[in-house]
């Protein structure tokens, strides 16, 4: 036979891809196969591929649902008594493109109706809470309503740290019916990793004697790049060997262009704008001595998971939530509003960013390797069915 397309990449082939995946289930197992459609699909980072990597071992069949509206076609094609799950991740698509608060509210109301209807068709709802509210929220009240709805209607809510449950309840005034606390996986093994520090620095043109900090990922207002710049600039005056390696796409948002200009003009900043191809990620992370996360706020961070997978200790702002991704002995906290003190921490590295700290990160990140975390989530989901 011929399959003239890449599986899971085109919405037009959704049904063929989904049902082909089901044929790989174990139909003789004591626990029946379960069709686990997940939405939205994010192929820009490996998170979803990693958390579902262990699902088939539990006879859970992950299915990429690239278009929400196609879910019904899958339900029409599933054997009648086959359990079916809709795993919802980020909710930004629900209100994306809204022109006004009323428009956003109408979209949310429609989405709620769809979810109720699907649950009426026997679909179990799993929601993973990636953040409390979207970064740069435009209609906070509408977004809160949507999250309250998800908390009230999900059969299982997945959070990545036990403190997040309290946070959800205090923010939205609703507790989930059932919750699973399963850590964000580290990205160990998710990216090519075959260069050492010397090769990575040669590739990027970073002096071997430099002390390199890396900030990886999109440049967005909530990530605090501009605020951190002030502290870094002071630190370089204290320690001229410091370099700040920044790699990521600059979104069309406030502060982006200003950051680009400052970075371009600063001799100790090595700024690589644009999306970094998978094969190149290792160069940026293997060239570094530590990662920097100057976020103003975050709940879970794929970037932390990524740098942990490359054994990097971190400098993290007080607004950056690290959940369980990092061992405490490899974390240096700093206050974005105190650039002077932050500069001193950068210039005179404490024990938390030493070689011993790298070892601690390596051990810790293997403990939350994708296979381990995926297995935990699959077990929790099975239990909830």
């Amino acid at each position: 036979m011929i399959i003239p397309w890449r599986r899971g990449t085109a919405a037009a082939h959704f049904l063929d891809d989904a049902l082909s995946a089901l044929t790989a289930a174990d139909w003789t197992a004591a626990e029946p196969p379960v069709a686990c459609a997940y939405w939205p699909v994010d192929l820009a980072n490996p998170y979803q591929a990693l958390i579902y990597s262990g699902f088939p071992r539990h006879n859970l069949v992950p299915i990429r649902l690239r278009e929400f509206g196609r879910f019904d076609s899958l339900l029409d094609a599933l054997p009648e008594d086959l359990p079916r799950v809709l795993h919802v991740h980020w909710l930004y698509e629900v209100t994306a493109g809204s022109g006004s608060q009323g428009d956003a509210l109408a979209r949310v109301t429609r989405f709620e109706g769809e979810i109720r209807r699907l649950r009426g068709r026997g679909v179990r709802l799993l929601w993973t809470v990636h953040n409390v509210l979207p970064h740069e929220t435009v209609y906070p009240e509408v977004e809160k309503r949507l999250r309250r709805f998800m908390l009230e209607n999900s059969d299982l809510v997945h959070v990545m740290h036990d403190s997040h449950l309290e946070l959800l309840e205090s923010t939205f005034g609703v507790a989930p019916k059932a919750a699973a606390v399963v850590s964000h996986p580290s990205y160990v093994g998710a990216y090519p990793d075959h260069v050492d520090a010397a090769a990575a620095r040669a590739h990027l043109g970073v002096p071997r004697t430099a002390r390199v900090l890396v900030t990886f990922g999109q440049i967005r207002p909530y990530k605090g790049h501009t605020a951190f710049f002030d502290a870094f600039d002071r630190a370089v005056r204290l320690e001229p060997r410091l370099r700040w390696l920044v790699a990521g796409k600059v979104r069309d948002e406030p502060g982006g262009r200003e950051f680009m200009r400052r970075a371009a003009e600063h001799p100790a900043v090595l700024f690589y704008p644009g999306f970094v191809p998978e094969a190149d990620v290792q160069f940026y992370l293997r060239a570094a001595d530590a990662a920097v996360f100057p976020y103003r706020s975050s709940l879970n961070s794929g970037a932390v998971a990524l740098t942990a997978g490359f054994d990097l200790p971190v400098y993290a702002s007080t607004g950056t939530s690290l959940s369980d991704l990092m061992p405490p002995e490899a974390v240096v906290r700093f206050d974005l509003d105190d650039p002077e003190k932050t500069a001193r921490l950068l210039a005179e590295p404490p024990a938390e960013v030493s070689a011993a700290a790298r070892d601690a990160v390596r051990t810790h990140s293997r403990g939350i390797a994708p296979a381990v975390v995926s297995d935990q989530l699959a077990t929790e989901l099975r239990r909830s069915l």
Partner: protein
Amino acid sequence: MRRLRRSLRPVRSGARRARARLGDLGALLNTRGVAFQDIRWVARTALARDQPDLAERALLELVRLGKASAEEQRLLRRLADERGAGAPGRQPRPSTAPEPSAGVGSGSSAGRPVEAGSSAGSPQLLIWRDRADAPLQATLVDPAAGVPADAGSGRSGTVAVWRTGWRELPRSLADELAIGLLTRVAVRNGVTTVRADDPSSAPLAEAVTRAVRDAGRPSAPTSELIP
């Protein structure tokens, strides 16, 4: 020069198509530098003329060139699937008309249901198609409860196998799904015998039997009809 070549393209293409219409449509595929639009035209024309082999060739060429649309990709998958049925490792495509007297496999006999596995008194799964190209159907038969295990009267407790959503799928994929579903039904109900009521469903009955047997369950069928 390049611009001139480009401007002449529709003229050449029209002439080629006109020639192909009159003679060998497939020859157009072998023309040096043939445009993908012409290949697409060959695929469409071949389908309209009921020449699936040529349509398949044209679609394969579109895929090779990276020019096949999603619809053409699906069409090629289905077309190739239909044409490849019967090859080793595949569930044979049913004949266009039921041939109960022809039998399937070494253990079948003229006019009798094909049977895979045997254990008197235990639940049986009966699989059939009303027509060779009709959707698969199945029923559970419990001889112990007094329900006759023959093809006719055993159909009252039908198992919902076919789903409307499978209509657009390649036949082999729909068959694989049916095998999975029937395997589940067999395992859950302690089926020890899988019977096929017509030649076209016999390979599926065999596949279900093998799947259940390979699961190593005590209730699994212990013998099989078709080697």
